[in-house]
């Protein structure tokens, strides 16, 4: 069974808006909000958090909790301390509220377990950290033109001279982004879900196609041409499918 999310915020509207965003990107993931104080004003309430966690656990085995500010974190910690049965199944992550929830929701939609969803949320901090998330790498292979690609931090960047292009089992296609806003949240989520289902490693301009945040961080714009690359068994079909999605304009073009 999949992992649910509980969003703990001082503001009911903030939590509801974030739940709306995650629902668009990860429609099958159970998301519950615990927001506002006991009177419904700005603040946090232990009872609301307990209720949301219980409601989420009624539908899934495990829950990842994201909290926005100060006392929201303290309230969640108190809920976990009050009921020792919760911690194995309920985990609060240290993650930026919006980016973390989006990354967690998409990861849960892709079928990740509690560890995987929690890791996805916590990795999201890199997308807003002071370090650049992507570094441009020039592959200085001889005999082929330099390739400007982007790789997420921590990924293995191809050695200069390595057969990063033109390898026997590599398939790629270049397609044009058609929708006005580029690969923004919703299209990125559509691509990430499709890529995760393929089981074949696919990259778009070097970014991991299963990562919503990586795709969004490419900052693609309408009319830009991007290269979709896959390797191994099924690479041809994978490139065709992802390229088709992009060329289709996600219903926006």
């Amino acid at each position: 069974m999949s992992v649910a999310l509980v969003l703990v915020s001082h503001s009911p509207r903030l939590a509801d808006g974030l739940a709306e965003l995650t629902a668009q990107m990860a429609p099958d993931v159970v998301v519950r909000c615990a927001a506002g104080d006991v009177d419904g004003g700005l603040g946090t309430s232990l009872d609301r958090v307990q209720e949301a966690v219980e409601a989420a656990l009624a539908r899934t085995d495990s829950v990842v909790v994201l909290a926005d500010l100060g006392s929201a974190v303290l309230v969640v910690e108190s809920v976990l301390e009050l009921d020792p049965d919760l911690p194995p199944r309920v985990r609060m992550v240290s993650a930026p509220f919006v980016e973390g929830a989006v990354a967690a929701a998409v990861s849960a939609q892709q079928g990740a377990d509690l560890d995987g969803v929690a890791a996805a949320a916590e990795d999201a901090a890199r997308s807003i950290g002071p370090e650049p998330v992507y570094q441009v790498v020039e592959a200085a292979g001889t005999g082929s033109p330099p390739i400007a690609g982007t790789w997420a931090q921590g990924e293995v960047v191809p050695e200069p001279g390595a057969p990063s292009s033109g390898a026997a089992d590599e398939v790629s296609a270049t397609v044009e982004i058609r929708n006005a806003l580029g690969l923004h949240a919703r299209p990125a989520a559509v691509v990430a879900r499709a890529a995760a289902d393929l089981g074949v490693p696919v990259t778009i301009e070097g970014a991991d196609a299963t990562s919503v945040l990586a795709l969004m961080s490419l900052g693609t714009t309408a009319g830009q041409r991007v290269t979709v690359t896959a390797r191994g068994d099924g690479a041809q079909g994978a490139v065709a499918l992802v390229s088709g999605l992009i060329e289709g304009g996600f219903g926006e073009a």
Partner: protein
Amino acid sequence: MRQAASDLKAGRDELTELDRRIGDGDHGSNMDRGFTAVVAKLDDAGSPETVGQVLKLVATTLMSTVGGASGPLYGTAFLRASKVVDRATVDPACLVSLAEAATEGIVARGRAHVGEKTMIDAWQPAVEAAEQAAGSGDVLDVLRAAAEAAEAGAVATIPLVATKGRASYLGERSAGTEDPGARSTAMLLAAAVTAAEEVAG
């Protein structure tokens, strides 16, 4: 607890005024609401067998009703304290371990330390004073020592610049106002002394 509720009701406006200056102005009403709820819960609970049971009830009630950061912080203090006393009365040594557990809970939950202009600045000296008094005095002596140290600790937060909690957003402007959480801690311990004096006659 009833004395605390009564004292916090009386001190509500003072806490609110302190919090209005360096926080969000709701500490007085939050604490009043929390301890009013505690009294109602105690009325419903009949006569609990142990001090730990009373403290646990106080903890869960404060967590649910106080709101803000103070609810989880005071709630955690009472929850941790409830775990170290499973008997009907307390002696000086027990009182000290109770105060130590409460303070450790606040430090752990709030990730705060002495000198950051928080309620820790009242709790920490109170615990140290209680530890010193426990060797020679009775329960009332220990409580008085703790309450006096908390009072001094709260007053000593006035010149401090907050580096933790909401007042830290104000930076230098937080200096000159007493920390509301340290003040409410001093009020709580003073209420404990008043109540113990009444019991002692």
